[in-house]
């Protein structure tokens, strides 16, 4: 049962993926195609968002169709903080005056905190249900936030919000595309390490057992609800962080980051790569951005073909890319 061969092959793929993503911007510079740096950054950020979702979906079996909510919230935190800092007008004045920030560490922390703050009530209600209900309810809550963003004019409403200059990071020139990529890549690496640690930890054991058999988890005295709520919150925090980076990449945030298409795409990233695999989201994000770029260059109707490919993966290649190359997942 312990397929050492497949195991080492998966590790090899992971290393190759990590190396290829890291190499891409340097190749871009060598080819004088700076746009490819943006593509690589996009891959890293989408992978990060999907690593977050993978904690809930891959490890916990919680099919959240509303993670765009956290992605968008992260984006709006970045946008709102930056716009207040840029215009030097206070966001709030009690209990202390706060005029936003254009520093990424502050923004990242806030993006994660706000995501957790929103994820806890959403999770607390959604996790009382399961199956299809959970899918639909998470979708509905995300939609609620989407409509709120559209109808609340203070931060651009339907038009979105521009970030005039990319937010800064101490000691890094974030305006330089390569530096910004490396920053995102570093965050992704930390998130992957976190995922790996959680996957193998006691918490991860309980979370995964709950996915396999909820009844069993409760029968050994671990209440599934609390484990899942915490997992949902951690998952939201990481996806929120990715949203903040995404806003800085585009220097723009709009309700489309909150849309249900985004939620669907995040799930697609995980499935394309391979569910519950450490590097599944990375493989999925690389593939997705490549599809988007390659197909988009051929036809404006690339989403039609993306749909066909996705349908093919779901119907015929359920392990995703890593599953295809590395064989069946090993659990032990």
């Amino acid at each position, binding site marked *: 049962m312990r397929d050492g061969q497949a195991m080492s092959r998966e590790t090899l793929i992971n290393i190759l993926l990590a190396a290829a993503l890291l190499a891409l911007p340097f190749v871009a510079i060598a080819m004088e195609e700076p746009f490819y740096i943006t593509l690589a950054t996009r891959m890293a950020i989408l992978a990060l968002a999907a690593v977050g979702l993978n904690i809930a979906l891959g490890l916990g079996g919680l099919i959240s169709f509303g993670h765009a909510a956290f992605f968008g919230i992260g984006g709006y935190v970045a946008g709102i903080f930056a716009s207040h800092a840029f215009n030097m007008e206070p966001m709030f004045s009690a209990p202390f005056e706060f005029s936003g920030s254009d520093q990424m560490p502050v923004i990242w922390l806030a993006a994660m905190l706000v995501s957790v703050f929103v994820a806890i009530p959403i999770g607390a209600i959604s996790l009382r249900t399961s199956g299809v209900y959970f899918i639909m309810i998470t979708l509905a809550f995300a939609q609620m936030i989407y409509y709120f963003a559209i109808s609340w004019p203070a931060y651009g409403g339907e038009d979105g919000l521009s970030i005039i200059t990319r937010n800064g990071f101490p000691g890094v020139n974030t305006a330089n595309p390569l530096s910004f990529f490396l920053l995102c890549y570093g965050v992704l690496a930390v998130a992957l390490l976190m995922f790996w640690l959680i996957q193998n930890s006691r918490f991860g054991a309980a979370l995964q057992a709950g996915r396999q058999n909820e009844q069993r988890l409760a029968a050994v005295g671990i209440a599934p609800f609390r484990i899942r709520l915490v997992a949902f919150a951690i998952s939201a925090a990481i996806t929120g962080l990715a949203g903040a980076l995404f806003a800085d990449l585009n220097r723009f945030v709009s309700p489309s980051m909150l849309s249900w298409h985004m939620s*669907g795409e995040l*799930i697609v990233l995980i499935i394309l790569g391979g569910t519950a695999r450490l590097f599944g989201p990375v493989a999925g994000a690389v593939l997705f951005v490549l599809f988007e770029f390659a197909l988009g260059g051929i036809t404006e109707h690339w989403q039609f073909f993306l749909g066909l490919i996705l349908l093919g993966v779901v119907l015929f290649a359920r392990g995703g890319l890593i599953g295809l190359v590395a064989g069946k997942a090993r659990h032990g």
Partner: protein
Amino acid sequence: MSTALLIEQILNGLQFGVMLFLMAAGLTLIFGVMGLINLAHGSLYMIGAFACAAVAAATGSFWLGLVASLAAAAAAGALVELVVIRRLYDRDHLDQVLATFALILIFSEGTRWLFGSFPLYLDIPSALSGAVQLPGGGRYPLYRLTIIGVGIAVAVGLYLLISKTRLGMRIRAGESDREMIAALGVDIRTLYTVVFALGAALAGLAGALVGALQSVQVGMGEPVLILAFVVIVIGGIGSIKGALVGAILVGLVDTLGRFLLPKLFAAFMGPAQGATAGAAIASMLIYIVMALILAFRPKGLFAANA
């Protein structure tokens, strides 16, 4: 605020609710019988609207368009069921979500390919273009009243179909015990195709009817789909009665919320700020209602298999 205006808003809410019911009935039926979550239901709504608009434009008859919308949506539903959906019944919900998400991409982009990005327009048929005098002095468009009537007729028809006919008996059997009805010799594959096509036809009908009120464009089905999800979550997945109650509730709450909340907030926040805050809260109102209902009844108001 006049009584006439309030009555008009209530009728608008009913009309919206009835339209949501047409969507939600198919979704909940498909889930109840086949255990399938179908995100592409909104695409069938869109197909109905496009078929109606295209045929009405070509022939000059809204009624032929309406027939075409039913036929096209039912045919698309049956085709999709035969080619894709039936491979998904034994799969988990994640696979169903992804495969039907893929179908949305295919349908939306395919429609854009065929019809272009510009919206089509569908005129209200001349026989229904007038308005009706309301008690209280207002007037209300006949066409919208007709939609309410159609919705009620469909609700009654579905009730009769499910409780009185052989097909309905099989559907009910399919909801409670799949193996049993296979054992009774009912061709379950055909039954599934029929149920799926029926749900699709209802979605197509909704799309065509609403197409004459709004513009017909790619992506029009998606907001409606998500509201239909809210409806069946509130009503209890698998319950037609729940879908009806949920749809009317969502239709009324949403419409009246958008109408009343800005006025209410304006009363104590000042007109400009109040209207903004009221509109923002109103846009979230049905989700708040959904959350409240679920907090007390996690399986919805009329849970099918409690």
